[in-house]
């Protein structure tokens, strides 16, 4: 199936769930977050879509005014088609349903995205930080991240941009 046909299939199953977004490429589709678990189940189990492989989960911070996003890359080994699903989150309270129990690899992908962006995957059975230490403060890949100044008494020196190197 082409990405356009996949979008139509999702839209006919979940009317009103596909959002318009001009910034996206042809193989990307933005979906509403509310019914994400049902939609993901549909993506996986529908015989025509049959996305049996979750290739990656990424987080994106679109900047001060924009939302946080989670992006899922799905691939179907059966039909050899791909789609990238985009879900936007409110910056203050970013959360979406976890798909960790549908694709087991989603476990670590979601933990990583949580670790870096603070997006909460509801229903994840073990949502802890995966790369940073458990007691790390803040979400490092967010645009407004300020590094912490000490960690267990170890100083993290702040190097000012450029001025020292001119």
């Amino acid at each position, binding site marked *: 199936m082409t990405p356009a046909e996949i979008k139509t299939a999702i839209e006919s199953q979940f009317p009103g769930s596909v959002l318009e977004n001009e910034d996206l490429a042809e193989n990307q589709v933005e979906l509403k977050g509310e019914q994400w678990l049902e939609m993901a189940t549909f993506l996986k189990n529908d015989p025509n879509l049959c996305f049996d492989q979750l290739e990656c989960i990424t987080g994106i911070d679109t900047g001060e005014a924009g939302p946080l996003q989670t992006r899922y890359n799905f691939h179907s080994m059966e039909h050899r088609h791909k789609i990238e699903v985009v879900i936007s989150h409110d910056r203050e309270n970013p959360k979406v349903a976890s798909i960790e129990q549908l694709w087991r690899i989603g476990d670590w992908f979601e933990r990583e995205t949580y670790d870096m962006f603070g997006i909460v995957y509801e229903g994840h059975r073990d949502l802890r930080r995966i790369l940073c230490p458990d007691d*790390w403060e803040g979400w490092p890949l967010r645009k407004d991240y300020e590094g912490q100044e000490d960690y267990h008494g*170890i100083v993290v020196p702040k190097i000012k*941009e450029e001025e020292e190197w001119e």
Partner: protein
Amino acid sequence: MGVLENRFKDNIIVASLDKFLGWARSTSPWYFQFGLACCAIEMMASAASRHDLERIGMMPRSSPRQADVMIVAGTVTMKMALRVKKLYEQMADPKYVISMGSCATSGGPYWQHGYHVLKGVDLVVPVDVYVPGCPPRPEALIEGLLKLQEKIQTERPLTRKTA
């Protein structure tokens, strides 16, 4: 067999015990076998057959209890820094630390933007020898190790140190 055969009579050597201990220690500094990032590859290359660290008496040990030298080979993250410190504390005296590569020495490429990288392992453990490079070639590491051996040789373990 060998060059020594029939050259000397069975004999006695007189040496200062302090120097003798220094010699014994410096010629068998067993190092702690762990690597943190890309520098560890060069450390492994130094230990492998081409450069062969065992020529200078260095043998990898997998337990901090058996090791004399800790080669901090690679990027020390904040998460690892606490563990490096703990491992150092578990080593038995006398113990030495080599900071290998610019990451371990100063944060290296992560100096400016690495929010989670320790800016020099000397912030958590005392360092004896710094080996510069990114990564240092095995020759550079070996030179660092020889420098460390010189340093160990000059120590006087029997003499009480007063501050």
